[in-house]
């Protein structure tokens, strides 16, 4: 069964929720941060106006699986949480149907400004959907269908029919067909085992089977025209043995004269009341309605005597679902009409200038193509560019443009905020303070002093040693005692090159009292062991920071990459930084990804250093490609040949460069 179902807004307020077991709020929070904010598990969803839950990849967290869908323009998120062990075939349907119903009922309230309050009495609708969907899923179970199959139909045929057809959901079939089909299936199966309402005297199936004529006012005429007695009886007969208990208590229920006094309405009332609520009559029903105060006309109507009759809940839900469906079909149909499309094209042109146009995929497609080309020109890897554009497109479909705002301007703004979001780190990247916290912890925090370990990785020739020296220079200027470790025991000359850097650093900072040493064990040794020894040595000698240089390696070199995992385990670096070249193009995504996963399951990169940014001008796309592929932030950018040419990344600067048009 479900653990919980929540309807919340993007501003973080839960509008309605139902939980069957208590689950920690952190489960939904992690969905929000990882999927919506940080976009870690990228929605591989199609770009549709409203994406069905089936298209959104399920999110797994801590033994739970979350299924979700959103309504963009209202800022709503619908989440269903259940144990990952369970397989709930109807879960997508549930999430989708609940979304449709909720938006239909409370959409108006949600548009009100300056409030988070939504009057909703949604429990009944939700329970109704759960019941309905569990029932259909039971129906699909071959065994139950067989036993309940009508006699007229040859038994071997039935399972096939059910297997071929989509689940016979009332709301999703077209009207004429749906009623028959629905009745049929409802009467067939419906052993209420395991449904939450098993104890209730009536089930929707039972109600339908009675097939009594309703007072005309309380039902739609289409229902009346479609009295289901025929289907009901055939199904009833075949399966009556299975559930004699079910119909009996229902028939026994009568309302007193005080109440409705209308036998036909007992089932109707039953739906509006909670399972144990069969104690009072009209008054309570009225009360509940009064509390809801939602356009009574859609809820029910007065009978001849002026009594208020609740409209059948099933009816209401079905009509909501069918009309939503019909709308979808409608909009598809109208857009193909020649005249209609001509008019809307003119209107569209007009609104493109004046603004106030609701964006559709067609409007966006061409402009998005332009944006994609622009990004590619800025050296953003194709994969990242495409996904960025998809994200922006998804964000914009269905959005109205502002006054005198063109589609292009809208895209520009959306892309800017999207880039900014990607490049902005989740937490602040104050390296010095992090080092302080480790190498000279506050006496109150009971932590032992130890050196802060930074290791640098990357492919060959991107400037690992140079950037390591730049970081060393920066740290030395801030009076840290630095140990540089040569773990490139592979390429000849690497140790000597590092020795030169260290000598330079010594000279440059000696006057200001910088302390820097080189730790090296020559060539051929295992890098992981050297690193481990170096860290131990640094702890003994009370160094503040250990900078470890590693051998450059191709990101697709399996053997060398796999040694990184051992390295991370032995050296236990506080920060693993990868150096990437601003010049690299499409390859950047694969590089970043492979290095990010090379350190085993519980360790990943902590940051990028993008080198040689001064050589590419505006084409700083590599920044975006790498961050986009891994969600690892850019810590530094290298902007020149000198030791002092290291900078923090300014997001504003990067975004401006990326969007500048020349």
């Amino acid at each position, binding site marked *: 069964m479900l653990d919980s179902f929540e309807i919340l807004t993007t*501003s973080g307020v839960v509008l309605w929720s139902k939980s069957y077991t208590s689950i920690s709020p952190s489960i939904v929070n992690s969905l929000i941060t990882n999927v919506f904010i*940080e976009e870690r598990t990228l929605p591989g969803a199609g770009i549709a106006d409203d994406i069905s839950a089936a298209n959104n990849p399920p999110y797994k967290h801590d033994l739970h699986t979350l299924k979700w869908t959103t309504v963009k323009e209202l800022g709503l998120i619908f989440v269903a949480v259940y144990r990952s062990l369970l397989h709930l075939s109807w879960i997508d349907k549930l999430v989708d149907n609940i979304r449709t119903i909720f938006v239909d009922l409370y959409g108006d309230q949600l548009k009100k400004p300056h409030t988070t309050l939504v009057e909703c009495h949604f429990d009944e609708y939700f329970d109704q959907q759960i019941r309905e969907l569990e029932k259909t899923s039971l129906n699909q179970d071959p065994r139950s269908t067989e036993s309940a199959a009508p006699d007229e139909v040859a038994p071997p045929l039935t399972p096939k029919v059910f297997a071929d057809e989509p689940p016979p959901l009332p709301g999703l079939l077209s009207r004429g067909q749906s009623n028959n089909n629905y009745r049929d299936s409802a009467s067939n199966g419906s052993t209420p085992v395991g449904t939450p309402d098993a104890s209730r005297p009536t089930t929707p199936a039972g109600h339908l089977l009675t097939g009594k004529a309703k007072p005309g006012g309380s039902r739609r005429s289409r229902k009346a025209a479609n009295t289901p007695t025929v289907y009901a009886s055939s199904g009833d007969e075949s399966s009556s043995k299975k559930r004699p208990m079910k119909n009996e208590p229902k028939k026994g229920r009568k309302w007193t004269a005080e109440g409705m006094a209308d036998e036909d309405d007992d089932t109707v009332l039953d739906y509006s009341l909670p399972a144990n609520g069969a104690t009072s009559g009209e008054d309570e029903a009225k009360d509940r309605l009064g509390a809801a105060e939602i356009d009574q006309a859609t809820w029910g109507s007065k009978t001849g005597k002026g009594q208020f009759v609740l409209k059948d809940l099933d009816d209401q839900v079905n009509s909501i679902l069918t009309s939503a469906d019909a709308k979808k079909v409608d909009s598809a149909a109208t857009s193909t009409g020649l005249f209609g499309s001509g008019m809307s094209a003119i209107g569209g042109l007009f609104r493109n200038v004046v603004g106030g146009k609701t964006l559709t995929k067609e409007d966006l497609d061409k402009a998005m193509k332009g944006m994609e080309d622009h990004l590619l020109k800025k050296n953003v890897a194709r994969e990242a560019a495409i996904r960025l554009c998809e994200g922006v497109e998804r964000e914009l479909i269905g959005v109205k443009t502002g006054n005198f705002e063109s589609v292009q301007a809208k895209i520009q703004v959306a892309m800017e905020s999207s880039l900014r979001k990607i490049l902005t780190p989740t937490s602040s990247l*104050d390296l010095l303070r992090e080092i302080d916290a480790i190498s000279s912890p506050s006496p109150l925090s009971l932590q032992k002093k130890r050196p802060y370990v930074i290791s640098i990785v990357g492919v060959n020739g991107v400037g690992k040693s140079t950037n390591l020296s730049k970081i060393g220079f920066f740290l030395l200027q801030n009076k840290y005692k630095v140990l540089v470790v040569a773990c490139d025991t592979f390429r000849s000359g690497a140790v000597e090159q590092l020795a030169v850097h260290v000598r330079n650093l010594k000279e440059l900072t000696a006057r200001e009292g910088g302390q820097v040493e080189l730790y090296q064990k020559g060539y051929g040794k295992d890098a992981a062991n050297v690193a481990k020894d170096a860290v131990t040595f640094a702890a003994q000698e009370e160094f503040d920071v250990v900078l470890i240089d590693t051998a450059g390696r191709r990101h697709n070199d399996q053997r060398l990459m796999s040694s990184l995992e051992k390295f991370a385990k032995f050296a236990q670096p506080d920060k693993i930084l990868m150096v990437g070249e601003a010049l690299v193009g499409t390859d950047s995504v694969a590089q970043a990804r492979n290095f990010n996963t090379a350190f085993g399951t519980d360790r990943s990169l902590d940051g990028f250093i993008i080198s040689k940014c001064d050589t590419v001008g505006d084409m700083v796309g590599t920044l975006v490609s790498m961050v986009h592929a891994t969600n690892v932030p850019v810590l530094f950018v290298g902007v020149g040949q000198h030791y002092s040419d290291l900078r923090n990344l300014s997001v504003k600067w990067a975004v401006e460069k990326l969007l500048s048009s020349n």
Partner: protein
Amino acid sequence: MASTSDWAQALLSPSPLGLVIAILLAISIPLFLHSVVFRASGLTTLPSILLIGPSDSGKTSLLTLFERGTNASTHTSQAPISVECSLPVSNTAGSDKYRSAHDPTNQAHKKFLLIDTPGHGKLRHHALDNLTNPQNLKGLIFIVDAATLSAGDEGLRQTADYLHDTLLILQKRMAGNKALKALKDLPVLIAANKMDLFTALPAALVKSTLESEITKVRVSRSKGLLDSGIGMDEGADDEKDDWLGEVGSQDFKFYQMEEFDVTVEVIGGNVTGGEGPTVEKWWSWISERL
């Protein structure tokens, strides 16, 4: 044929209908344009209070509590929201202090807008935009989770960082745009939330811990590397005044902000908890600012 010429004649002859339509058009077009152009700049004169703070500190919880009077469950926010709240009857707004108790304007609850912002690192620009472009802003509530502020805690570093950046924006507001300059003095309330938890620091300790952590932040900021933007484009704005508080001071103290017309107060409380919320002091802080 006859009908076509009829039509042509009808179109060209000075008919009263054509006149009416022309007049209607002439009147309605300016009206239409006016409504289109000025709709956005409607009069939003309700005083507003901004909620700001790191993620999970209880901003949205406080917002819903102030709006409804009861707790509601919340999750991580992705978008800002503003909500119309009214002062509880027991609190009189500061601007109404000298009114007689029987003054009818006193009967109506003083209304204000409470603006909640997401605290996630990637979404702080919402809050900062609100600060740099304030609409009748009367005060700022910076909510911290007092249970995550013990020394060496990651929460302390994140909180201090955010608070440092926020205060720095306020300090630099004189150099900023006009709307921000118009804010003569801006009171800041540091609401130490979650006092119901036994790990929570008392308000006085919250204050001193934050002060000493901000001292570290501003030192390390001043020593940090330059931003990549600086020196690359000429329009780099002034980098001189990035030191928060009194120049040359050893330790940062919140009172140093008074030089910049920013008064900082730290008050404890809790939004949820076994014995119900404790927010009266926050209410009275708000009521004094309205």
